[in-house]
Structures are given as C-alpha cells and as structure tokens.
C-alpha cells in the first residue's frame, strides 16, 4: 500500500472492546477494530448509531466506560500522548469559533502554540483555504458562511495541524454534489501525499465507496461488518444490505411519482 519512497507518517489506531453508556442508554456496545497506518477507513451507519460518540472517544473528548484506544500501541488515556501525536477531528457541525474570522480559525492552532511567525501562518492559512476552495472567505465571520462552507473551513483548520490521524465526521453532509466530490478528492489527496491515517464517518455512499480502503458498517453501537468495499457490498446481513441499498423510489408511496 505504501510506496517505499514515501515516509509513512500516519499512525496505527486500535480500538479494543470500547463501551460507553449515557444514563441508561448503551451507545457503544463493545467496538473492536484496527486502522492501519496510512489507511482510509470509512465508518457507515444510520443516524444515532454512535458514530460521533466514537470519534469523540478517539480524539480524547470522552472517556470510555470500558475498553481501550491505542495509537501506535500507546493508550491515548496517558496525558502526554495528545502532545506526542498530531490528531485532528473535523466536527460534524464544523465547530468554528464564532468570534474569530475564518482565517483566524484556520490559523488558530499555529497562532496559539506559536509554532510559526505571523507571515508564515498567513501564507499557510491562504494555502489551506485554497485547498478547500474557500480563499474568498478568509476575512468573513463563521456566521456569514453556509453550512457547507463552514465544513470546508473546518477541514482547512484540521489540515493546518498536519495531522498523523485525521477524523472526519460527516465531511460531505450539507455539501452539494460538486463540493462533495472536491472534498472526497481532498481526503484522498491528503491521504496520498502525507500518508495520514484517515477515518471517515459518513452516510454518503458515493464518498465511502470512492475513497475507502476498508469500510465498517455500524448500527446500534455495534460493528456489523468490516471489510473492503467489495466485501461489504456483498455481505449477506440484512441490516447492512438495507442500509447500503436504501432507495426512496422503492417505498410504495413514492412508486407512482
């Protein structure tokens, strides 16, 4: 998978027996999977199946009730790990800071940690915004952006971190088909150029089957199957097939339209 010339930068991610309950509801019911360095791993599943909760665990925003998460074999619960590996999460809602401009949001990581001089930061911000086709919005406030533009700004903000593991929560929801293709292309390019380990949570079947090295299908806090796109497509479980082939034209009341 890796061409020998490229230094594999991505990290290996292992999830073992991950469980989490909120009140009486068990949202994650024992998840096990491994994402190889440099892989694009896609998680699909219906709304409410616990995908966003899973991502929050992976980035350390939530602590599991049971199980562990390992990055390159080290538990992410140890405090130094966050500083050791660069990880980024693109939030489902974007989660831009509303009091900062788009440009300031994108450069925030570098400015706050004082990693680069201001002129250099400005250059990087413009470059990353251009990557997601958002150059004209650099001085706008997040409140002035559409949902899709926010999502793209959030992706630019994640790219600035130069992550070794990047988690995308529904990167193409709220995007028009053309922008979706651009984002899919961007996820793919970034992965090819930097070998960043990429974990994409999505409902978007075109995106999933377009970029994935492997796909996991989740429902009700459990993983139903993991495999290559071909294997998942052929997986004989009814829930997986209904999810993958759901098509509104088959519903009786749409039949005569």
């Amino acid at each position: 998978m890796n061409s020998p010339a490229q230094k594999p930068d991505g990290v290996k991610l292992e999830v073992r027996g991950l469980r989490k309950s909120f009140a009486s509801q068990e949202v994650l019911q024992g998840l096990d999977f491994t994402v190889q360095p440099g892989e694009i791993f896609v998680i699909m599943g219906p709304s409410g199946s616990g995908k966003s909760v899973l991502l929050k665990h992976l980035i350390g925003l939530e602590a599991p009730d049971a199980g562990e998460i390992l990055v390159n074999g080290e538990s992410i619960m140890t405090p130094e790990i966050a500083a050791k590996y660069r990880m980024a999460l693109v939030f489902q809602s974007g989660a831009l800071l509303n009091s900062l401009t788009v440009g300031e949001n994108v450069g925030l990581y570098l400015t706050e940690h004082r990693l680069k001089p201001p002129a250099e930061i400005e250059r990087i911000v413009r470059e990353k915004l251009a990557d997601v086709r958002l150059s004209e919005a650099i001085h706008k406030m997040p409140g002035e952006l559409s949902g899709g533009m926010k999502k793209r700004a959030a992706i630019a903000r994640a790219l600035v971190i130069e992550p070794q593991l990047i988690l995308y929560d529904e990167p193409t929801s709220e995007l028009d088909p053309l922008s979706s293709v651009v984002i899919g292309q961007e996820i793919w390019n970034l992965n090819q150029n930097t070998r960043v380990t990429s974990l994409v949570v999505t409902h978007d079947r075109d995106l999933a089957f377009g970029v994935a090295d492997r796909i996991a299908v989740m429902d009700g806090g459990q993983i139903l199957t993991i495999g290559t796109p071909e294997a998942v497509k052929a997986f004989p479980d009814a829930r997986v097939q209904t999810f993958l082939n759901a098509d509104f034209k088959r519903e009786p009341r749409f039949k005569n339209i």
Partner: protein
Amino acid sequence: MFDNIGQMVLLFWRTLGALPLAWRQRQKVFEQFFEIGNASLLMVCMLSFFIGGVLSLQTGPALVERGLPSAVGGIVGLAVARELAPVMMAILIAGRIGSAMAAEIGSMRVYQEIDALRTMNINPIHYLVLPRLVAIALALPMLVVLAILIGWFGGATVAEINHHMAIPFAVFFGDLRSMVELKDVANGVFKTFCFAIIIGTVSCHQGMATIGGPRGIGRSVTKAVVNSIILIVMFDYILTRLLLH
C-alpha cells in the same frame, strides 16, 4: 449552588496556576478589559452619583436637625468608600459582565467550540477563563475607585443644593477628609478585588458547565448572576468582619 463550590474553587485554582501565562495572553486580557470598561463606564458613573446623592439625602437632614452637620461628609464618605460603591458596583458588573461571560462561554460549550479547542490542544482555561478573570480583577477595582469619587461628588452636590442641609462643597469635603482615611478606601478596593474574582470564577464556571441548547445557556446566565450576587453579599460580610481590625 453549593454543590458547585468545589468545582469553582478548582477552576479558580487552575486559573491561578496558569497566571504566568497571562502575559502571553495579554492581547485577550486587553480586549476583555476594554470591553468591560466600554460596557459599564457610563452606568457606573450614573449609578454612583445617585447612590452618593440618596445617601446624603437620607442621612443629612436628620443629622443637621440634631446639630451635627459636620458628620454628613464623613458618613457619606465612609459609607460610599467602604460599602456602597464596592457592593453596588460588583452587583452591577455581575449583571452586566458576568452574564456576558457566562453566555459567551456557554454558547461556545453548546456549539462544541470548546471541544474544538481541546482537539487542538488549546486549554480552554488558558484561552477563555484566564483572560476574563485577569481583566475583571483589574477593571472592577479601577471602576470602584471612580465610583467612590463620583459617589462623594454626588453626596456633596445633594448636600449643597438641598435646602434642609445647604452644606457647602468645601465644608462637606473638609469633614469627609477628617473622617475618611486612605485605609477605608483601600479596604473597599480590596473587597472589590475579591468580588471581581467571585464574578469571574462563578460566571466562567457556569459557562463551562453549560449543558443543553439555547435554554441551557439561558439557565447558565441566570445562575451566574444570581450566584455571583449571593456570594458577593455573603463575602461582603465576611471580608468586612475580617478587615475590621
């Protein structure tokens, strides 16, 4: 409210630990500082003028009737410097600035902006709480010094123009100077500094602890203001008692 006290103390303690970083965050401290000034300067001036005035009006005629006109300046001077300016301004600022802090941080919490900061390894205490706490701890004592001066001026004005008293300006301030020591003003300002820390800590804590949507933010704002005011009045008694000797 009291189940949160432990968390608030912890938040304050952590912020205190981050204090050496305040210089690095000076840009944000200044922003907050000027925001506080902008939002409250005019209100502070008006409120303190009338507080001094009404105090003069309430005490003056009774004292003059009993042949103690020279006590008016001292009483108004002491009451304003030691009690009324610090407490009233702290309550005003709790309503004006504490509510804004809780709302801003609360909405950042609800809309996952704080989670986003944490994923970027940016400590929300350093980024959000520290600048606000430092700014209010600097701004509120300054506002209170101003409030004390304007309060005295209001008291003197009323004492002169009210025909039951008709105490000239110079006499009022002469009496005031003979009764009020620098120590009294310093006590008032010190209390204010403590109130500022209460407002900042309570409001930032409420903001950080916000759960739920817009309603959660509303709840946090109300709690921030009410809890601040309760703690201000309680600590006012405790601090006054401690500073008495």
